[in-house]
């Protein structure tokens, strides 16, 4: 198939579908028409897209944890615990890493060992192995909207099984679930595979069921400059909309400087609206998600609570539609359900205390919005140009040439030439803009910011500064100062 940002024909879709459903025996259980009927019976308050729309209209910020274990009953218990003890508004099902790499055999081994040892040896819920009926058992046991969260480059079968199973939201995208999650998978292939997922969601939409889609915003979670993640989020959103998706949540991972974080969400919302309108997708309902700090966490739980709370506060002041919540165990391992619920409750306390408080516009916030927007426009314009009017083709070429570049990514499909670092106030800037298509003004802006920090620290900006920044939050600060 030739990559193009064009809605798939029914024929193309059905042809590929035949192959997808045979990737693992449980694929055979799916019947789209039966699935649509099943979805129709899910009440509105359990429906992700509807819940998000309502929250956006009411100016609310909803909480959502990450969580998933190997076995069905344990997974149900976990989610219900987070609902009750964590007061979570939205629930996830985090998929294990073997499933993410399509290693269903390994996942099966994980299930069996988990059964034997009585503790989850998988870092998530292996939905494909559990199959349609396993998934529905979960869906029917949880009285809240449910989303699949993963990191799967090829998630076609996973989308088929989980949406048919009654999940009303599905995270991921051809860029955001490739570059941070794979090493050597062709971007062309993942974009096509995600067009499949989006077309599937588009099919449901045509049948009256708006399944929510969420490109994965934070990417590597490590010093990703807002314009980079915003550009990719908007691109994936546009690609999804083209396949007929009608409910999209665009995401951003907290950087830690309040003005920059608020600006990032505002700019993301503004620009997404602009691009969606311009390209004819104004009927797509857009919402936003703010991820609490995604980089390395402090091991100390008190300090972790502080980082979590700061993320909650920033999300509230930015008025994101939902916030993805970390836990006090983050630095150490998959959280216990108690630690997960504690992170949720801390977050809820602050969201409630800050309900109604908004960050008023000010010169610094405006400056951040302006610079993020200008950079994002530069990137998107260049992608469009490289693709000769096709955002999908443009994306491929943009990654080849470094016009799109994700820092610290495992993938060989990103140039890794751009390097971020913090400025003296902790905002994430570019230490090296690499091949990003920025104007000289923008480059000078970042260069000045880095020099300013260098002056304060009495050292030249070097790669050591970047490393110091990577460790900083875990060590108790935002900016990695020389010791």
């Amino acid at each position, binding site marked *: 198939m030739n990559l193009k940002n064009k809605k798939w024909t029914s024929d193309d879709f059905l042809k590929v579908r035949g192959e997808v459903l045979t990737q693992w025996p449980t694929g055979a259980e799916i019947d789209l028409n039966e699935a649509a009927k099943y979805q129709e019976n899910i009440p509105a308050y359990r429906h992700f897209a509807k819940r998000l729309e309502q929250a956006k209209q009411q100016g609310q910020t909803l909480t959502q944890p990450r969580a998933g274990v190997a076995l069905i009953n344990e997974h149900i218990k976990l989610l219900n615990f987070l609902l009750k003890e964590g007061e979570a508004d939205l629930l996830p099902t985090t998929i294990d890493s073997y499933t993410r790499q399509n290693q269903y055999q390994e996942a099966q081994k994980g299930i069996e060992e988990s059964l034997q040892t009585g503790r989850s040896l998988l870092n998530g819920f292996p939905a494909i192995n559990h199959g349609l009926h396993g998934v529905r058992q979960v869906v029917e046991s949880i009285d809240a909207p449910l989303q699949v969260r993963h990191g799967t480059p090829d998630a076609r079968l996973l989308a088929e099984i989980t949406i048919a199973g009654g999940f009303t939201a599905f995270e991921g995208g051809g860029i955001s679930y490739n570059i941070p999650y*794979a090493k050597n998978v062709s971007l062309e292939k993942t974009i096509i595979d995600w067009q499949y997922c989006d077309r599937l969601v588009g099919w449901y939409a045509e049948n009256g069921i708006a399944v929510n889609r969420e490109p994965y915003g934070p990417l590597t979670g490590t010093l990703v400059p807002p314009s980079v993640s915003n550009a990719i989020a908007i691109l994936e959103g546009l690609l999804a909309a083209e396949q007929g998706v009608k409910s999209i949540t665009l995401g951003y991972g907290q950087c830690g400087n309040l003005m920059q974080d608020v600006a990032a969400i505002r700019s993301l919302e503004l620009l997404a609206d602009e691009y969606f309108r311009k390209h004819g997708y104004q009927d797509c309902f857009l919402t936003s998600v703010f991820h609490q700090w995604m980089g390395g966490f402090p091991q100390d739980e008190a300090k972790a609570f502080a980082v979590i709370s700061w993320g909650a506060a920033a999300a509230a002041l930015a008025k994101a539609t939902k916030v993805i919540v970390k836990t006090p*165990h983050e630095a150490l391992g998959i959280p216990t359900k108690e630690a997960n619920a504690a992170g949720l409750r801390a977050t809820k306390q602050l969201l409630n205390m800050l309900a109604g408080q908004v960050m008023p516009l000010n010169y610094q916030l405006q400056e951040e919005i302006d610079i993020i927007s200008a950079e994002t426009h530069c990137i998107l314009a260049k992608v469009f140009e490289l693709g000769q009017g096709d955002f999908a083709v443009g994306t491929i070429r943009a990654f080849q040439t470094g016009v799109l570049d994700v820092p610290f990514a495992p993938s060989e499909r990103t140039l890794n030439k751009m390097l971020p670092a913090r400025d003296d106030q902790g905002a994430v800037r570019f230490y090296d803009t690499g091949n990003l298509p920025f104007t000289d003004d923008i480059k000078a802006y970042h260069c000045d910011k880095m020099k300013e920090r260098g002056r304060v620290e009495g050292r030249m900006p070097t790669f050591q500064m970047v490393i110091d920044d990577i460790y900083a939050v875990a060590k108790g600060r935002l900016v990695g100062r020389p010791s």
Partner: protein
Amino acid sequence: MQGKKAKVVLGVIGADCHAVGNKILNYAFTAAGFEVVNLGVLVSQQEFINAAIETDAQAILVASLYGHGEMDCRGLRERCIEAGIDNTLLYVGGNLVVGKTEFKQIEDKFYQMGYNRVYGPGTLPDQVIADLKQDLAQRGFGCA
């Protein structure tokens, strides 16, 4: 052999894609004078073995962050022995098991699997470099 650069094979095992620590370890070991053969993320046991044989490395540094380390790392020492490189140092580090666990337990588990040194979360490269230099010196390999 005085003065010759010591070689280490570096990689993140299994279906694990955590790349940040890997990049930093790569940078730090290189800066400390080692020759680093960095396999990046998503590395199978066989790839570790092959790289160690090909480059005649003194140590394999296995990282596992994502929680499946216990399953992924089991058997690597046996494969080394089979491949005739049983003298190679095996270091392992990261977030080795699913969930927050007493580090002593994890350490014992991985020692039993045949790893020479086991590191918990939050380990800084300097410490690992110092340990490796010491282990290599004990084995008569004077390094950079």
